[in-house]
């Protein structure tokens, strides 16, 4: 997997209604703040080296909250619980191209989560995981526009962002 990925990493491309070229897939991402709410957990993807929020695709037979909690555990070792749905991201001008050539129009549900157990560790999908200061995280070029998920969450709106 890794040599193939390194040569041909997962890419996100932008263009007018380019999402049409992909198969619709539903994903989730998770914002976990540190204790003081001054930091946020990010992971670094094995496949393209980019930092991102923990998250992944929703599998048949699970709810979106279960998918989010499972992905965070798989990628970081932390047990979390969904607290709030903070945004839906469905930019039609974005397309994700995987190492195997498959194209996807990925719609992402972002949740704020809280830690209920576990210890931070890495997985096959992540080469690094750490808490970044929020001011730094929102300035980073996170995978798939994830910095926007953090910014929207912090905007002070109590209703979910619809994009």
């Amino acid at each position, binding site marked *: 997997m890794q040599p193939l990925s390194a040569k041909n990493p997962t890419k996100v491309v932008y263009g007018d209604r380019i999402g049409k070229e992909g198969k619709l897939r539903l994903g989730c991402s998770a914002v976990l703040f540190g204790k003081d709410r001054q930091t946020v957990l990010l992971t670094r993807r094995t496949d393209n080296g980019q930092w991102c929020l923990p998250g992944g695709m929703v599998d048949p037979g699970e709810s979106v909250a279960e998918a989010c909690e499972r992905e965070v555990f798989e990628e970081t070792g932390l047990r979390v619980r969904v607290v709030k749905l903070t945004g839906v991201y469905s930019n039609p001008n974005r397309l994700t191209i995987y190492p195997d050539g498959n194209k996807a*129009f990925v719609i992402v*549900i972002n949740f704020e989560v809280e830690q209920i157990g576990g210890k931070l560790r890495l997985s096959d999908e992540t080469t690094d995981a750490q808490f970044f200061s929020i001011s730094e995280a929102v300035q980073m070029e996170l995978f798939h526009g994830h910095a926007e998920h953090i910014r929207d969450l912090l905007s002070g709106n109590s209703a979910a962002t619809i994009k």
Partner: protein
Amino acid sequence: MTQILYGDRIGRQGNIRLGCSAVLFDVNREKVLLTRRADNGQWCLPSGGVEPGESVSEACTRETLEETGLRVRVTRLTSIFSSPDRLVIYSDGNQFQIITLNFEVSEIGGKPVLSDETTNIGFYCILEIETMDILPHHKQFISDTLAGQDATFIR
């Protein structure tokens, strides 16, 4: 005909599909727009699948226009329904666990009309809706929307 099966984690037998639905109140916020499906006689909110290359709000406004003739604007996301214990089987044999985003919408134009897929359309109050044959999660969406809270219900 479309079949809906319920059972522990039965969603595993299908693929994930993303849908949306719309709650549109009348001016007094007492009645909700419902249509009656031609294929099975059941009442439902305007709803349908999200297509690649459209945002979820675009999908919601498009489906509402197609099914009711009304042009609407999405105002908030009231609920997400993603029960893994429900499987939808279409007449072509395709099986899906449908995850639905429910939006409150406001009217910006158009006139209510019937489509090929609907035999009835109208605004109904909650007491009437209680007695109607309506998809259970759509009934849930209506009460979620009436609750009027900012946070999205995770169902």
